[in-house]
């Protein structure tokens, strides 16, 4: 198989067809794709425009945007390169498959003893009995090693042929076909699929997702409800498990409830839902401590949002107003998540900010009679879900299996042929076994030796 290449390599003016059936093109395009793909790992991809303007000089930025280097794997030129590979495979297969097909499915399987070489022939083995008596047992024995056998008598003995793995010659085409299938799968993915994100607070539900590439909203045919979310940590503080209990609500009815984990998505109507992130959505209850600056006494109160409490010692009335995701202190400093409330004492009213990250922040409140700190929070989370529809996946997975099978067939199986040549020598028979293979000659040669000793054994047992 390796030596029957008929690729053109003379002259510059090759017709387009000749260009596309050449392995030179394959080699060049494979290496060009490898080199350009490497560029994309050095330049960060798909960042916001501002990122590139800030990090690159004007000229590099201009070149980068003209050549699409900031989203290069989806650029036209990159996809054109892949298309050239695909055409290359198709053209080559059309060109060569006909010939290979004739070898693999011949009208009649023929053998010629002359095509076997001396190099791959065993030393002669002599056994008792005439060829006439050995014919049938030998053929029977050879059948145990080869799927197809043929007997052809000569003037003083016989040739016995056997062969295996004729169809393995098609392995390459399985690989090439499945590479094409893989490309089709990715095409299906990108045309008919979508990918989006949605955050759902515990107890909440959502039927609309935000698409990843365009930031557009997309309604789903059903709603997703988050019944529960849980995050567990190891002692070291690393996250251990994110788990969302989700229900699918279709036509107003909950039709499916399942727990999803990071590696265990759920599927419904061709849409897959993955656990991808989480965050604090809201606070239900806060246990706060109020310490009187005068007496030093500390009072513990648990409040829900909107609730007020009147403190002893005429310290005032505190109202917990809201929970905010990011409090901007003096409109400048981001303090992150915080509880907001106010303290009313007679006519005076003060705003109280309790950032979750800064425990003693309230000590800074001026003209205050209390210091308030957060002791415990009863928070609700939102679960961040990735929602994806990808009809290409089955096609891609099928191509995966075929690629592996094809590579196995191509490299680890071969079309082996064997020829047993038996001659009468007085009352005995002398025979040799020759091997021929389209690749892995060493293995074929070893197998010839093996068949030789099996036949010898067979004759001895008679």
């Amino acid at each position, binding site marked *: 198989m390796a030596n029957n290449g008929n690729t053109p390599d003379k002259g510059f003016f090759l017709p387009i067809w000749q260009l596309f059936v050449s392995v030179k093109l394959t080699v060049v395009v494979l290496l060009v794709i490898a080199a350009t*793909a490497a560029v994309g790992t050095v330049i960060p991809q798909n960042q916001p425009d501002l990122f590139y303007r800030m990090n690159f000089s004007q000229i590099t930025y201009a070149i980068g945007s003209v050549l699409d280097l900031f989203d290069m794997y989806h650029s036209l030129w990159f996809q054109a390169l892949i298309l050239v590979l695909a055409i290359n495979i198709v053209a080559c297969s059309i060109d060569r498959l006909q010939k290979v097909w004739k070898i693999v499915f011949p009208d009649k399987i023929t053998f010629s003893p002359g095509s076997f070489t001396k190099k791959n022939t065993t030393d002669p083995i002599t056994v008792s009995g005439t060829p006439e008596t050995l014919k049938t047992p030998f053929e029977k024995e050879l059948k145990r090693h080869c799927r197809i056998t043929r007997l052809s008598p000569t003037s003083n003995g016989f040739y016995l042929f056997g062969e295996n793995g004729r169809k393995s010659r098609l392995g390459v085409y399985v690989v090439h076909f499945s590479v094409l299938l893989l490309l089709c799968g990715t095409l299906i993915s990108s045309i008919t699929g979508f990918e989006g994100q949605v955050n759902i607070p515990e107890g909440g539900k959502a039927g609309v997702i935000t698409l990843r590439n365009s930031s557009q909203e997309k309604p789903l045919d059903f709603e997703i409800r988050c019944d529960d979310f849980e995050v567990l940590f190891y002692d070291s503080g690393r996250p251990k498990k994110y788990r969302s209990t989700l229900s699918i609500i279709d036509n107003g009815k909950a039709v499916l409830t399942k727990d999803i984990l990071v590696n265990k998505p759920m599927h419904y109507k061709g849409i*897959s839902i993955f656990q991808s992130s989480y965050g604090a959505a809201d606070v239900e209850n806060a246990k706060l401590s109020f310490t009187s600056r005068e007496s030093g006494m500390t009072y513990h109160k648990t409040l829900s949002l909107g609730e007020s409490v009147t403190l002893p010692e005429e310290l005032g009335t505190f109202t917990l107003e809201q929970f905010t995701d990011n409090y901007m202190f003096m409109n400048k400093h981001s303090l992150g998540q915080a509880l907001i409330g106010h303290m009313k004492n007679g006519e005076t009213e003060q705003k109280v900010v309790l950032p979750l990250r800064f425990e003693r922040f309230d000590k800074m409140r001026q003209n205050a009679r209390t210091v308030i700190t957060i002791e415990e929070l009863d928070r609700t989370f939102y679960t961040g879900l990735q929602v994806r529809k990808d009809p290409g996946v089955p096609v891609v997975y099928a191509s995966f299996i075929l690629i592996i099978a094809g590579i196995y067939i191509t490299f680890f199986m071969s079309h082996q042929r064997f020829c047993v040549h038996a001659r009468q020598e007085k009352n005995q028979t002398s025979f040799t076994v020759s091997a021929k293979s389209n690749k892995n000659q060493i293995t074929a040669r070893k197998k010839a030796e093996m068949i030789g000793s099996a036949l010898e054994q067979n004759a001895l047992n008679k």
Partner: protein
Amino acid sequence: MTSSFVLSITTFIYGLAVILYAAGVSFKRELPAKAATITTWIAVLANLAGILLRWLESHQLGYGHAPLTNLYESLIFFAFATGVVYLGLEIKFKTRGLGAAAVLISFIALAYASLGKGMDQEIQPLIPALQSNWLSAHVMTCFLGYAAFAIAFGISVVYLIVADQVTEDDTAGGPATSGIYSLLPPADVLEELIYQTVVFGFFFLSMGIITGAVWANTAWGRYWGWDPKETWSLITWFVYATMLHVRLMRNWTGKRIAWFAIAGFAAVLFTYFGVNLLPGLHSYQ
């Protein structure tokens, strides 16, 4: 006995095997080479024991995951895989001449794992994305592939040294019996070995990329995302695919094939280490 103790001892056993193999080739003696084979077997078994022990230790810590999840653990598995693939090659092709080149790789990998600067040897619990059986399948197949590529690289270096020697003696294609290389197979067999080893590696790299894609699809909902590590494994695959095509279809042989195997291994090394310098989901930090 802790796993890291077992593995440091293993490092020395690999080192001993390298010396014995080298002695065999230098003094043209079968005896040290035979001793080297036995030593390598012991080293590989000790390496395996180290891996299993570390697995046990992770169970005792309450994490209980296969030790295939960070740079340290992957180096240990890589050393093991290289030893196993090499012994397979030694049995299949009946030659002890290449042991020094191949086992040296196991030795370097383990030595680097034990002594490398900033190497984090601690057993860490798995973050959620890594809690998948596909992870083990992915790492094992990838590293079997890398091991084969590393050995092909080693044979290529030997080949490039020996090939000239043989031409000088005008015995190209014949057995390289002159000089110190008498235990080595002839040059054309060496070249065939490079090819066979690359084919083996290519099969497992393909499986590695594919299991990785399946894992990515269950963890992140996409089978391919052009993340730098993914991209570099594909680049590596392309380099070796090109090598196979020029050999099969354009009859490239000899030094060009050896250089190709060296270039391919450079791509492997970058996929393995270089990518950690780039941002992405895979960086083992």
